[in-house]
């Protein structure tokens, strides 16, 4: 899957959880999911579970520790998909 397509799908999953619509409008790979998009940290797990369902992958607890930006999520999913 192309990175642009992956980015688009990741964004679609994150969007409902984002409280900062301004940051969402100009989102990029470096946008911080918690700090910029203001996704509730407790809801990050729901975001990651949605990634698992959408892409048919399993993400370990340790993998989530490295997901800070949208780009981190895109790269993690890309790596899982091989």
């Amino acid at each position: 899957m192309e990175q642009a397509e992956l980015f688009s799908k990741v964004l679609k999953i994150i969007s409902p959880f984002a409280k900062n619509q301004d940051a969402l409008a100009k989102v990029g790979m470096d946008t911080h999911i918690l700090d910029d998009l203001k996704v509730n940290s407790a809801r990050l797990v729901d975001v990651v579970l949605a990634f698992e369902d959408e892409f048919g992958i399993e993400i370990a607890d340790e993998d989530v520790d490295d997901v800070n930006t949208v780009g981190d999520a895109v790269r993690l999913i890309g790596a899982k998909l091989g």
Partner: protein
Amino acid sequence: MAELALRTRLALQLQRVVVATLAPLWAPALAVGMRLVLRWRIEGAREARAEYARIRATSRAPLLVCANHLTMVDSAIIAWALGSPGWYLLHPSSLPWNVPDRANFASRWWQRILVYLMKCIPIPRGGDRAEVAGVLHRLAWLLARGDVGLVFPEGGRSRTGRVERATSTYGVGRILGLVPGCRVLCVHLRGEGQEAFSRAPRRGERFHVALELFEPKSDATGLRRSLDLTRQVIGRLADLEQGFFDARR
């Protein structure tokens, strides 16, 4: 469970020694303050303390205390409900470690000293994921070595005044996943005047405490396992809470 760095392990061991050494100074004063100055009373404390002492005496399996969360001083009240200062002096590993929010409890230098002495490992709630994971690993390491931890599965004070299943964090499940065989002691503590969350209970508050020990298990893997374990704990807490309200009808 990933092994902690030697420096981290030594730092925790040092904190454990410092707390055990200095607790005789602050623990009785804290208990006196709660009992005589604030005039708080805990109904069922005698039974709760006996049950906690029995749990600790009969098994050295890892133990995590999980409680409902209504005020910013719940950790102190729960520790008081589970043991007297004198008992903790004889059983220092039974005084629970806490993981308070760094922003609220450890943003200033004197706060950091206080929480260090009160057996806390501040956590950057909602902060850097790797840093949060580091704190959870430290707590898991302590549990695996016979110490007791105290966490609030709801992740913060309940905004509705009731155990909130929807806002539960998965950190509790993650800790449990890191420590095989870890048991959970669910503690529901509520004052008769506590209808909603607040900074602290009112003066003269009369609390009621209820405990339930169980070992959560899950066949799921990864994040779903952590979430499943967390939901089991929250479910038990909600049941204890329901018991409190049913008894008062």
